[in-house]
């Protein structure tokens, strides 16, 4: 038997983020718009986009140091590059004549995964939050020890923690260099410093920073919760995704590889027999 639960639903949407003050002549039209109490037009004239993004997500404008850290992080993440699944998806769509309005939704969906995507950033922030009070070198040793012998035998990529591990057959050199530069710029960033010490203990396992771990460290320091960090990572990638898509827009379909039959290998599964 189906019975209504009688849940009490809210009569209105409640929000702390945005207040729209109605035009006296039309209640459906806003005359003024405030975000977290700030007039949007004043923000537009006096603050940077990065500061406003921080304000929208945190409710307060950032300090100068926080703004610089977020600015540099968002620049670092602004293009995942044409080898990332998200950008490759957009390029595939573009060259196959998909409506460019779909480029970002397609790319952002693929920027949400556990492999170099938002889900990995989310999990890395959780990891950092749980571990930042522990000794990073000891933690690295424990996690390397825990990597199963079977995984080693099967040559599985080393992933001692979300956001940290191997990259193809080695360490992500670019992420390592970027981390070092950020650490030099922000030596008092506690999460980043913890991560630097942590990766020093991973090198013997051929593991290090992944770009997701670096993003997570920066977002952790800024007090962004795991799901906010995951979404911001996706958002940050938008300019690069769009750029790679637009670059191929209008180009012939032959401008991207199409795998020939000779390089398409059918590995007949047992269940087919």
């Amino acid at each position: 038997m189906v019975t209504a639960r009688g849940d009490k639903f809210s009569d209105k949407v409640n929000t702390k983020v945005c207040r729209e003050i109605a035009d006296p002549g039309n209640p459906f039209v806003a005359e003024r718009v405030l975000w977290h109490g700030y007039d949007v037009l004043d923000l537009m004239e006096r603050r940077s986009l990065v500061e406003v993004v921080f304000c929208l997500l945190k409710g307060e404008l950032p300090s100068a140091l926080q703004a610089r850290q977020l600015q540099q992080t968002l620049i670092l993440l602004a293009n995942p590059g044409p080898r990332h699944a998200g950008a490759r998806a957009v390029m595939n769509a573009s060259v196959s004549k998909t409506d460019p309005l779909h480029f970002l939704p397609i790319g952002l969906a693929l920027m949400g995964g556990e492999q170099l995507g938002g889900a990995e950033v989310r999990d890395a922030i959780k990891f950092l939050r749980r571990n930042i009070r522990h000794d990073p070198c000891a933690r690295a040793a424990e996690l390397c020890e825990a990597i199963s012998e079977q995984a080693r035998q099967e040559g599985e990529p080393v992933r001692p923690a979300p956001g940290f591990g191997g990259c193809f057959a080695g360490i992500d050199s670019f992420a390592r260099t970027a981390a070092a530069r950020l650490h030099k710029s922000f030596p008092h960033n506690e999460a980043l410093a913890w991560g630097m010490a942590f990766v020093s203990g991973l090198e013997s396992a051929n593991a290090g920073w992944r770009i997701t771990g670096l993003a997570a460290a920066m977002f952790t320091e800024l007090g962004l919760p795991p799901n906010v960090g995951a979404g911001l990572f996706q958002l940050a990638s938008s300019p690069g995704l769009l750029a790679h898509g637009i670059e191929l827009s209008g180009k012939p379909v032959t401008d991207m590889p199409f795998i020939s039959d000779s390089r398409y290998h059918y590995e007949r599964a047992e269940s087919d027999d």
Partner: protein
Amino acid sequence: MSGLNPMTDKASVDYWDRRRGRIFSRKGGWVLGQGVSSHGYSMLDDLVGRAGFFQVLVLNVTGKLPEKQLSDWMESAFICLSWPDARIWCNQIGAFGGDARVVPSAAICAGIMASDSRMYGPGTVLETCHFIAAAARSLQQGHSAAEFIQAHARNKGKTMLPGFVRPIVTGDERVTAMQGVAKNLGFEDGPHLAAAYQVQEYLIENHGESLNLAGYMSAFLLDRGMTPHQGYIIFSLCVNGGIHACYEESCSRPAGSFLPLRCDDINYCGEKERAVPHD
């Protein structure tokens, strides 16, 4: 890292190099000018006109071509999950898409993504399958339904019952409908459905909750040998019919007219107005 097989060892650059510019597929594919296959079946000779859409969907995912009855059962399950009511969250997103005049694929994909939810829709299938599989194992080991729920269903002080709770209402008329479909198609209950019914019996008595459609479907699919992940993949689009309907309707009405809001329909509960500080 030496001594490992370069063909399978992902710690070797050789492994990655072997995959550059090549696709390895266990599914099949298109051989230009010759034909297209799925798991050994010729799509055009063996499947088109002979097998149902859902049979081929299951084949594509699992590698096994199921009997037609399963395809018919799935078609009915998709119908049960696709109600043309724009109050349902994923459908409402489809309606907003039509209202905003986005193209159908964008609106429907947005609705589908929304249905990957922990509360309803295909997003619940994976967790529900694991829960019911655990229930079946526990009951087989001689534990009671009450003991299983005590041991497995607690999370942060809340009772978590994937497959047994439904938003808005208690009870699920779709389960009754699908039980009828299964009976007419000649399916018998297997150990997972039996376990689900045992858990349901306890929950009706003690919590007023019963098996929902996701729970019923998950148990049914586990009884047919499907893995939780395969079930999650196959049902990922299951709400699409309702989204299609709500998109089409809002598209056919004036733009912006679906649930319009006045400014004061939003209850602002944040900071009072304040001046933007100078740098």
